[in-house]
Each structure stands twice: as C-alpha cells, then as structure tokens.
C-alpha cells in the first residue's frame, strides 16, 4: 500500500516536472520570439532606398498636366535604368512655385542637370544662364529657350506636327465633301514658343486653301480657367452661330476640356476635335467620334534623349545641341490597337 502510494507520488512528480520542463521551454521560446518582435519594431521606420550618383531636375511648364507627368514618368524610368535619378522640382511641397522659382531651387540645391520645358522669356533665359554658370547643364524639352545658353534642345518637331494638323484638316474637308472648312486653334497663353510654331506651320500648310483657321488664346494660368475659357468661347461662337467644323487643341488639358464642352453643349456631330496627347478620355472620344484624331508625343524618345544628353555632357562635356522627337497620330483606324505604354517600341 505504502509502496503503491510512493510510486503514484513519483509518477505525479514526474508528470509535474515534465510540465514544468515544457513550460520552461515555452517561456524561453516566448522570450526569444518576444525579443524578435521588439527588434522588428524599429524596422518599420526604415524604408529601403536606392542611392544614385546623379540627380537631374525636371521642370515642366505645368507639372500637373498629364503630358508632363507622362514625360516625367518616362524620364524617371529611363534615368533609373541608367544610374541617375530625376526629381520633379517643386513637387510635393506645401507651396506651389513658379517655373522661375523651381529653376532657382534646382540651382541652389546643386542638381547635376536640369530638364526644362523652355520658353522665350528673359527670366527663363537668365536662369538658364545662371544654371550654366553654376556648372549645371540645361536641356530644354518640348519648347526651347532660344535666347539662353542652354546645353541642348530636345525638339518635338512642331513644324511637322503643324503640317500633320493641316493634313488632317484637308482630309476632314474631303470626308465632309464641302468646299470650305472652318477651324479654330486654341493656343496656350503660357507657351508662346511651341504653340506658335505649330500654328505657323498649320497656317503655312493651309496657305491658299479654302480652309479657314482662326486662333483663340485660352487662359491656362490657373487650373480651372481652361475649361471655363473654352466654354465661354464656344458659347460666344454658338451665339454667333459660328461653331467651327474643327477645333484644334495643342495640349492635353485643352483637348480634354474641349471634348467635355462639346459634349455638354451637344455639339457632337456639328464639330470635331483634332487633339493632342493620348489620355484615356481622349482615346475613348476617338472611339465615340467626338475627336477626329490626336497626336501623342513619343515620350520615351524624349526621355532617352534628355537623359543621354545630360549623362553625356556630365561625362564628356560635349553634346549635340539639337535633337528631335516625333509624334504618333491616333485616329479611328488605329485607336483600337494603340497602347499608350507601348509606344516605346514604335518610337
């Protein structure tokens, strides 16, 4: 009896000791896991980042425009592939700076190069000179800063673009079967350079034809002014019963605003748009018929030329001071197969 009790006690003690052992290991494992948890707390703060040897600044006329964003995206991707980084100067700040301020910021923050959507203002020219004086190469893109000592200009061949707009107008007139065709071109008041070039090229192409082209300057100084301006102009033309057969737009925002206005005013069919850029609303409008054709910039070509030029200048100090990039025409015939992201291969 006594022996039985003793052996039962021993079994109990052994079981309890086993449980204690298991709990001990559980505690140790828990403490190790706990330490791991505490250590991993600090890792939340550290985000992985890649360091680049060079920084270029991209300064667009309108940093919020889709075209600028698109070009910036292409430039950034290409730059990263080629060991440098591009910053859209002035973005993500609590204050919106003018182009001149953004150039100044780029200069004072000692970037390795500036990709600038140029204009012919004296201020821009002076800032280009200041940058160059500080050893920062400046590549103008889309539109030049002719008076400045910029390093290089990546041109969009606006003359060819104008001719193409003219060609499309003639084609439209043929399709309509009318003798005359009224067209209006909406010019951006900010960019005197490129729009003017395109306008002049169209005029030159239409010289002597029965197609009449009048111009209207749209105020794009504030983000909401564009649409209001276009609507106002259309209202005015409507009142005069002088709605044009074709409205030519030379940037993405104007194109999209015009499409919106003619839909709202129920002018689809009465007028059509020759647009600019390949955003989704514009492409859809081609499919619906409210836009006759649009011209997309070869953004990847521009990106390559800009980055290669700056890298080459920084490496050798010598680059070609003029380069061109083309446009892609999108109309009903190719809109279904057109891939905005895939234009790299086509360029």
């Amino acid at each position, binding site marked *: 009896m*006594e022996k039985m*009790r*003793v052996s039962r*006690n021993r079994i109990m*003690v052994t079981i*309890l*000791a086993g*449980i*204690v052992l298991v*709990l*001990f290991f*559980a*505690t140790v494992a*828990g*403490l190790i*896991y*706990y*330490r791991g*948890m*505490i250590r*991993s*707390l*600090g890792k*939340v*703060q550290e*985000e992985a*980042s*890649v*360091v*680049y*040897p*060079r*920084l270029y600044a991209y300064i667009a006329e309108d940093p919020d425009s889709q075209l600028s964003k698109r070009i910036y995206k292409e430039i950034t991707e290409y730059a*990263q592939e080629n060991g*440098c*980084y591009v*910053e859209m100067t002035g973005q*993500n*700040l*609590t*204050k919106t*700076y003018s182009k001149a*301020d953004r150039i*100044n*910021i780029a*200069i*004072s*923050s*000692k970037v390795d190069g500036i990709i600038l959507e140029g204009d012919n203002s004296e201020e821009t020219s002076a800032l280009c000179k200041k940058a160059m004086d500080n050893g920062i190469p400046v590549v103008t893109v889309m539109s030049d800063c002719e008076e400045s000592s910029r390093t290089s200009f990546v041109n969009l061949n606006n003359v060819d673009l104008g001719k193409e707009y003219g060609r499309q107008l003639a084609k439209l007139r043929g399709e309509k079967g009318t003798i005359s065709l009224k067209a209006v071109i909406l010019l951006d008041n900010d960019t005197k350079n490129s729009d003017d070039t395109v306008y002049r090229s169209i005029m030159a192409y239409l010289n002597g034809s029965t197609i009449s082209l009048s111009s209207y300057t749209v105020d794009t100084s504030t983000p909401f002014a564009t649409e209001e301006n276009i609507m106002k102009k259309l209202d005015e033309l409507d009142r005069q019963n002088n709605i044009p057969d074709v409205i030519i737009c030379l940037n993405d925002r104007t194109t999209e605003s015009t499409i919106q206005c003619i839909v709202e005013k129920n002018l689809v069919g009465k007028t059509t748009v020759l647009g600019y850029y390949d955003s989704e609303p514009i492409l859809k409008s081609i499919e619906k018929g409210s836009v006759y054709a649009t011209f997309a910039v070869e953004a990847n070509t521009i990106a390559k030329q800009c980055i290669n030029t700056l890298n080459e200048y920084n490496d050798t100090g010598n680059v070609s001071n003029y380069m061109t990039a083309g446009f892609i025409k999108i109309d009903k015939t190719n809109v279904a197969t057109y891939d905005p992201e895939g234009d790299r291969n086509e360029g």
Partner: protein
Amino acid sequence: MKASFFANMKISRKLVAVFLATSLIAMGVNIFIYFNLNQALDKINSVFASNISLNELSDTLNKIHTGLTGYLETKGTDDLELYYASEQRMHMQMRSLNSSVSDNGVRLAERDMYNMLETYLKTADEAVLAKRGRNIDEYIEKYNECSRIKDYLNTYIYSVNNEQFKTNSENYMALINSLRYTEIMSVLIFAVASVMNVLLIIILTSTITRPLTRLSAKADEISQGSPENVEPLEVYSEDEVGKVTRAFNEMLASIKDYIARIRTQLITQSEMKEKNLLMETHLKDAQLKYLQSQINPHFLFNTLNAGAQLAMMEGADRTVEYIRNMADFFRYNVKKSSETVKLSEEIELVDSYMYILNVRYAGEILFEKDIDESLLGVMVPSMIIQPLVENSIKYGIKDLEPGEGKVTLSVYREDKMCCIRVSDNGIGTDEEIIEKIMNHEKKPSETRGVGITNVMSRLDLYYNNKEVFEMKSRKNEGTHVTIKIPLEDANV
C-alpha cells in the same frame, strides 16, 4: 545526484532554495520584458525625433537670416555674432541631413535642403563680405538670393516636416499596435512563467512535506494499536525529516522488541505456575496416599510415645528402640513431606524404615549401605529414597526365602552427579513394566506401590525433565533403581 543533494539539504535551506529559484525565474523574466519594453519605448520616442530636428533646423536658419539681415542693415556686431553662432550650429545640424541622391522622397528632399543650405551659407558669407567691402549692389543681390533660398528652405522644411510627420505618425501607430502585441505577448510569457513557478513550488514543497505526511500516517497507524504489524518507513533523505524518520523507525523496532520480551516473560511465568501446581498436586497425592493408608501420624506419635514410655518403665529396651524408630519415621513423613531435605535425612528415614521392617520380619531383610559421606549434605526432594526401598522389599525380595533378601543403598559421585542407587537381589522386573514405568504409562495403582511413579514425577518437575531416573533389571538378578542428581542443582 542533484536530487539526492537537494534531498539531503536542511528543510530551511530547501525552502529558501525553492523560493529563491522561483523568485529568480520571475525576476529574470520581468527584467527581460522590462528591458525590451524600454527599448521599444525608446524606439517609439525616437519616431518624432526627425520632426524635432527639422524644427531646430528651421529655427537656426531663421536666426542666421535675422543675424544676416541685422548685420546688413546696421552692421551690428551682435547680429554678426548671432549670424556666426547660428551658422556654426547650422553646420552641426546639417550633419544629420542626408546628402546623397535617393529615390526616397524625404531623403531626396533632405539632400536638396542640405545643398540649398550650403548655397545659402555661401551666399550669406558673400553678402557679409560684400557688406564689409561696402559693395551695396552685390550684398543686396546676395541678400535677395539668401531670402529666396530661405523661403525655399522653409517651404522644404515645412513640407518634409509634414511628410515626415505623416510617415512618423504611421510608424507611431504601427509601433503602438506592435507594442500592444508585445504587451499581450509579455502577459502570456509572464502567465506561463507564473504557472511554471507555481508547479515548481508544488513539486519542491511536496518533496519536503511528503515524508512528513507519510510519517504522520505511520504514527496514526501505530496509535490505532498493533505496532508489531507496522512496517518501518523508508528513508529517502538525510534532512531533519529523514532523521526523524530514522528515529521513528528505531522507536518502532524498540516497541516491537519490548512487546516480544513481555510476551516471552508471560509465557515463562505461566509455565512456571503450571509446574508448581503440578508439583503440589503430586505431593498432595503422595500425602493423601499416606494419610489414607496410615493412621493420623500425630495420634500415632502420641500413642507411640506413650508405648515407648511404657516399655521404658517396663525395662523393655528393644521395644523402646522400636517404638522410637517408628515415631521418627512417621514424624519425618509429617514434617518433611513438602520440603527439600538433606540426603542424610533421607538416609536416616530409610534406616528407620528398615529397622521397623526388620523388627516386623524378625531381621529377615538384609540392608546394606554404601555411602559417600561427602554427599550427605546434598539437597534433594523429600521422600524419594524410602519409596524405592519399600518397592524393592515389597516386589523385589518378597518371594525370597527369609534371610536371603538383600536391599542395598549406595550414594556415590559420578561425573558431577550425585547418584543414589537402591538395588535388590530379588526376582527382577519385567522389561515391559520398566518401559511402562519409564514412559509414565503405568498408573500408580498398577505399579509397584505408590513409590516409583510419584518419585519419578516429582523428580521430573523438580529437575525440569532432566533424565535423572534410571531403572534396570534382569530376571532373577534383582532390580537397580538409580537417581542421578546434578550437583549444580543440588544446593550443596
């Protein structure tokens, strides 16, 4: 080894060891959790450190600019001191800023700020130099440039501060959430450790208290009686309980031994009583026999004495002698029947008996004595020789011709024994009868008189069944009866 080491520790030390071990475990776990939690809190505290340093940067920049503006306006030395002190501080603070190109927005903004600050400080220095050189146009231009860069920097600082605050707040929330998990985790660990400690205490204290419980159960068992059936406890440890258990076992053994001794004593005592009772019975039996067969001895003594006095008055000397012998014989019987007596007294009795018989049978029985006188003081039970002599006369020589019968009494020493032999030259005794007598199968009535059986029984009782009685006989060659009394029992 460890277990036995623990088992042999003193109870007070065991208890200290148990509580020390569990307390150390609890303390260790607590310290570990506290240390790590503190680390986590430090990390959380450092989350907003970047915001703080950016604010300090902005303050320093504004001080530099105030100093610069003051100096350019009034050329005041205090302003210049403020300017230089702030500039120095700025250089220190700039070290915490990232200066490399990174694809991380905040780090890139830091790099821009770093370079803009360098440009600012350089331009400000140029402005101060131009002021010293009184080059008004240049320092105004430089000052304007500085103001512009300061504005950019403040915007950058504000924006980065905002951005970092957003990120830091997210981190803070993530850290706080993680901290909640760590809290749960620490509570779990602590709970597990506590359970483990409780079990540890149960195990270790049970090793201390279990022997005590067993001991008390044993004590209970003993108190309920029959301690001789209680098994001793096994001793597992050498602590106080072990020592008490050992002492308990010794006590148990002593009790058992004591009980056994008392029992043996009781048995011996009862055996003794039984023996005494038997002795008394046999003596009484013998006495009864005499009383039945003889006249009241007191009356007889008185009558015999009267007869002796009469014979003396008549001058009959032989009659006087005869009557005196008879009186002695019966007095002896009355007086000595319940005592041990000296061998000499027994012999005297036999002499009296033989004298009486020879008077009766007119000297026909020849009686011879061969006595070792050194043995006369040997103490023997009374009435052991006379019955033997009587038997020899009654059965041994009764059929012989008058004058032929002879009875011999010999007392001699042999191997530390006092031998008393009564022999006759009679017809002898049958083997069968001797065997029956020796085996106590023969009833007294069947034997040769009262004598032998009674004598044998008393001798057996007196000498504890030692073989002291011997009877030998041959046809027509007489019978020899020998009593061998061990001298150490005889109280010489």
